[in-house]
């Protein structure tokens, strides 16, 4: 299948600090790709780079979306893509919405930015979107301000605005992290329903391995600006090949097992231990040796399963 999005060797640097350091991946139409990793690993920066929201911090690479390189488009062309063909939702829906504008207006604004329709048509469409994302009494809610809505409701508004122009790709950056667990379940179900019904592809950025386990078709694990492992979801959880992935999976307390066992830990933290050269995980890795002084390439370990580790072959 041809990829909807093909990212090649994406590089982002803030001053001297490389936030994203040569990231490559593809997303197929209708596919949900989970992008996981801990804070500072570059997962949000990757999404912002694709949306061209980083103002010149992108230092290299390409991102072909439906034949066009997003990173090379001129600004008007990018404006035509952003919000229309690729949409994005954020972690904190409370701050992503404008606090002084009624939420209905924020959704109609998203519609009218890309479609030449009258205010009345846009309003009718917003009402329809509110129903689609499961907002009760949508006529009333259109007139509400963000502070009058709960976090879950605000995220539904964000999703309504994001899908207003039927995008082919949605970048969802920790869309449920700020929400309660029962509301998280509602929002994830909603995203899954929309994606199945419309064939919209999703890049789901999260630190929660439970969320990707349920939602993603494939998972890319990031560490310190690089993808260290990428695999179909079932394979990643059944046979993680990179020591970091294994460490992450082991360190998650599980509801269904191991209550009284000491949790296995990954020693140190990203902030205090990043190798200057070679494998960036080496300082925290139980398997590190001399070979790890050279950077390991992201190489196949099984069908569709890639890992960047000299010891995972």
């Amino acid at each position, binding site marked *: 299948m041809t990829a909807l999005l093909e990212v090649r060797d994406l590089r982002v640097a803030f001053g001297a600090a490389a936030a994203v350091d040569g990231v490559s991946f593809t997303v197929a139409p209708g596919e949900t790709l989970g992008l996981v990793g801990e804070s500072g690993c570059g997962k949000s920066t990757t999404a912002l780079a694709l949306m061209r929201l980083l103002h010149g911090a992108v230092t290299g690479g390409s991102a072909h979306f439906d034949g066009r390189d997003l990173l090379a488009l001129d600004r008007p062309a990018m404006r035509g893509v952003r919000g229309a063909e690729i949409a994005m939702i954020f972690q904190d829906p409370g701050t992503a919405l404008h606090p002084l504008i009624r939420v209905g207006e924020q959704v109609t604004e998203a519609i009218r930015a890309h479609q030449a329709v009258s205010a009345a048509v846009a309003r009718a469409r917003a009402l329809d979107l509110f129903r689609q994302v499961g907002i009760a009494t949508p006529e009333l809610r259109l007139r509400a301000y963000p502070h009058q809505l709960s976090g879950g409701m605000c995220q539904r508004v964000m999703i309504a605005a994001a899908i207003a122009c039927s995008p082919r790709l949605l970048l969802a950056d920790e869309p449920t992290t700020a929400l309660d667990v*029962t509301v998280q379940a509602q929002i994830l179900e909603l995203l899954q329903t929309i994606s199945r019904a419309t064939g919209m592809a999703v890049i789901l950025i999260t630190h929660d391995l*439970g969320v990707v386990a349920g939602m993603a078709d494939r998972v890319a694990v990031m560490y310190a600006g690089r993808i260290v492992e990428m695999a179909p979801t079932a394979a990643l959880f059944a046979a993680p090949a990179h020591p970091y992935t294994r460490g992450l999976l082991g360190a998650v307390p599980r509801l269904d097992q191991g*209550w009284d066992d000491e949790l296995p830990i990954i020693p140190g*933290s990203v902030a205090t231990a990043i190798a200057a050269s070679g494998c960036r995980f080496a300082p925290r890795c139980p398997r590190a040796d001399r070979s790890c002084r050279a950077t390991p390439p992201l190489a196949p370990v099984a069908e569709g399963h890639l890992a960047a580790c000299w010891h995972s072959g």
Partner: protein
Amino acid sequence: MSTKLIEAIGLARHYRLGTRVLRALDGVDLAIGRAETLGLVGESGSGKSTLGRTLVGLQPPSRGSVRFDGMDTKGATGAVLRQLRRRRQLVFQDPSGALNPRMTIGATLTEHLRVQGWERAAVRARVPQVLAAAGLSAAHAPRYPHELSGGQRQRAVIARAISTDPDFLVADEPVSALDVSTRAQIINLLRSLQRDRGLGMLFISHDLSVVAHMCSRVAVMYLGRIVELAPREALFAAPLHPYTVALLSAVPLPDPVRERSRNRIILRGEPPDPADPPPGCRFHPRCRLASAICTRVDPPLRWFGPHHAAACHHAGEQAAASAAGGPVRINAGRPAEEGGAGQMR
């Protein structure tokens, strides 16, 4: 000497919002034993933090009382109050906000102990000891919070809390702001403190998986009330309250096979406004078992066994449903222990 370390009796805490009254805590009865860790779970706005803060005496209750070690804490003054503060400590969610950014870790610990009346010489000896107990070293004392990682900052907050040798600790979402790998380190640290120091603990978390690893007994809160209270084995394997069932089924499992084969209960509707709770059972608008009685009569917390209580008119029916393939199959690795150390009603 009572085996109850701390006890909440009919505890209520109300906040005035203009003309309305928000009942953040609305009649909570609860006891925590010595060296027992009670998990407190619930969604935002359910009153978890208010309960924690009221138990350590950061704010007075509007009604009801807190008994600590057999003594009513109300009206304590002078040396008694200082002892109560020494013995009840708090660990916060966000370690960056809980530490003064302009004080070194050592200065923060010193101030904490000096306020408690410790002599300078004793403080100098004490600081490296508590840093070590929290998994830091004396080398961290001259550092400022911004020079530490998130996990190290939380260790510093824990060091401060245990520096006065408390008997009771309220840990309010202590690992929620931390990354996965750091979270495991802090959970292990708290478990070793619990074990080695015989700390009684109220462990507040919205994350049921973390609670399963930290606590022998769990209380579930909904809109200012405790709706279920049980040993963790019973709560996770055979929950009685439909809200607990929904909460458990909503927890994502890091296992694609089980995650995709689960029968997930998605709650309808939004959590209601705590300043305007529904009549009758507060959960009834979102409950799939709700019947006529639930809209009228507020169910009290009833006992369904020596250690298992729930506030639900239909709790029995729910038990039958969970016996026939409950929300989470548990392989806890060890047999369930009923009535373990320090456990009580």
